[in-house]
């Protein structure tokens, strides 16, 4: 990276399946206050730019960026909104700091998934309006098709997907922020209702409400503010095509491309050797496996076996989603990536409590934009 950038403050609000006690503004405010307290800054004085992440149809408001500045302390200051995952927002903040024109930048993402009464319809509204949407199938069908192709191409057994669910929801039991901790069996996961064959209900992350705010600073400012900065070593993001008809169905090419950029900017040659753990998208259980392979932590077809052997458990060789991931914490819409980053920050500071990964020095967070997209973003952090 051309200039040092660190996370110097992290705050959150949530995470619960519903949150009727707080408006989205109050939820963002709560997370922001925690982050500024953590960083020891006053947003009205110390922040050069604010980045938020939101999509109109998840908020129920057109040009939702209107409603972002006040509760972050950003009124009458530079603010902009990214329609991406929180890690895309993080990338926008990192780039601003890298220009040398900004020293402290704040990133925010949130989810009020419980307030969206017709989420499958909103997802369907993301499909091509001419070629796909008129067929009016449930958007999870795309996940079902991807999963079948992935399993077929890699020879991954169904049980491996189920083990991802068992692992992540079990990890969530140790995470006080997680909404969906549970003690499940492979049989229960595979035996749950069919959503889009071979995808069963328990392999799909349920949604949660919450907000995450991160404070980023350049190296000099970071060292002045804190003695435990979490350094952003590298960042990358990429899209394949949006078009269902010309994309690969079995592989997560976007994850591969995003990771390659992140590794290049971080100067990482051997991800498995140089990275200690990962928090990666598991919107659907098979995605964790597919992403592990695309991110280069193992070869295609190996992630399932690795998972079945316990290699990705908290005490394993390479812990994956020690937080519980989206399966365990709840899927936070556009905030999912920042929830992954939040966990990496806790781990690298040694503050993860009962789900702490021992000796964690470098972690990777990866987010996917969900069906029907092929957009993803990765970030590598070190203490």
């Amino acid at each position, binding site marked *: 990276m051309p200039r040092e950038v660190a996370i110097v403050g992290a705050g959150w609000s949530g995470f619960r399946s519903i949150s009727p006690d707080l408006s989205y503004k109050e939820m963002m405010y709560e997370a922001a206050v925690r982050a500024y307290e953590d960083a020891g800054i006053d947003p009205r004085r110390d922040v050069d730019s604010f980045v938020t992440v939101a999509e109109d149809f998840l908020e129920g408001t057109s040009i939702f960026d209107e409603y972002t500045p006040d509760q972050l302390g950003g009124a009458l200051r530079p603010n902009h909104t990214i329609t991406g995952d929180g890690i895309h927002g993080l990338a926008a903040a990192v780039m601003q700091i890298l220009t040398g024109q900004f020293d402290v930048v704040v990133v925010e993402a949130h989810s009020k998934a419980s307030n969206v009464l017709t989420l*499958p319809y909103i997802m369907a509204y993301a499909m091509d309006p001419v070629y796909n949407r008129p067929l009016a199938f449930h958007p999870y069908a795309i996940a079902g*098709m991807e*999963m079948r*192709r992935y399993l077929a191409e890699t020879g991954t057994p169904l049980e491996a997907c189920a083990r991802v669910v068992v692992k992540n929801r079990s990890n969530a039991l140790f995470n006080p922020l997680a909404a969906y901790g549970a003690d499940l069996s492979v049989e229960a996961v595979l035996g749950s209702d069919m959503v*889009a064959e071979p995808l069963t209900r328990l392999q799909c992350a349920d949604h949660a409400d919450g907000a995450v705010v991160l404070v980023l600073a350049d190296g000099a400012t970071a060292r002045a503010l804190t003695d435990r900065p979490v350094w952003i070593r590298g960042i990358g993001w990429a899209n394949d095509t949006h078009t269902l008809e*010309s994309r690969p169905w079995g592989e997560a090419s976007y994850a591969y491309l995003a990771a390659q950029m992140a590794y290049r900017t971080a100067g990482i040659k051997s991800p498995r050797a140089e990275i200690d753990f990962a928090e990666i998208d598991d919107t659907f259980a098979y995605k964790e496996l597919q992403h592990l392979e695309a991110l280069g932590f193992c070869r295609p077809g190996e992630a399932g076996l690795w998972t079945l052997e316990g290699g990705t458990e908290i005490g394993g060789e390479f812990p994956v989603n020690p937080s519980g991931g989206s399966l365990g914490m709840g899927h936070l819409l556009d905030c999912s990536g920042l929830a992954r980053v939040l966990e990496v920050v806790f781990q690298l500071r040694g503050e993860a409590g009962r789900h702490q990964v021992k000796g964690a020095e470098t972690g990777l967070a990866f987010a996917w934009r969900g069906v029907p997209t092929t957009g993803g973003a990765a970030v590598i952090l070190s203490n």
Partner: protein
Amino acid sequence: MSLLERIAHPDQTKAWFGEIPIQNRYTVGIAGERFFREIKDHGRFWGTRCSHCDLIYVPPRLYCERCFAHLEEWVEVPTTGRVHTFTVVPLDLDGNPLPEPRIVAFIQIDGTDGGLVHDLGEVAPEEVCIGMCVEAVFKEPAERRGSITDIRYFRPVG
């Protein structure tokens, strides 16, 4: 300092209900116009070819997404293909059970680099497999309106 006052009882919470009350009308586009006209009028599929990338796009595209060339070479392609992947969906968008589960597949159109996402019909879910040869079944010409739904479904060949 965080919030100084909070809601203390469930009867003090309130949700305000609303919607985004719009409707949309989408042109099928420059490439789509010809593609759907051919389906409507002749029950045929056409694609566009990128000579630079050596790709045949189905559905046809005005441009090559890889090299950005303007695609002007139209080629007729078969209405047959192979099941590249598929799923069986028992639920509608509201989460209610469908009368019959739908088999949704991505069908790679023969001789092309593209394909179509569509339903499979005249086949039981347990009989479907990756690689299965299928053909498009069109609606009667009078029922067609120039839409992806002019294809009723794809069914196994032979």
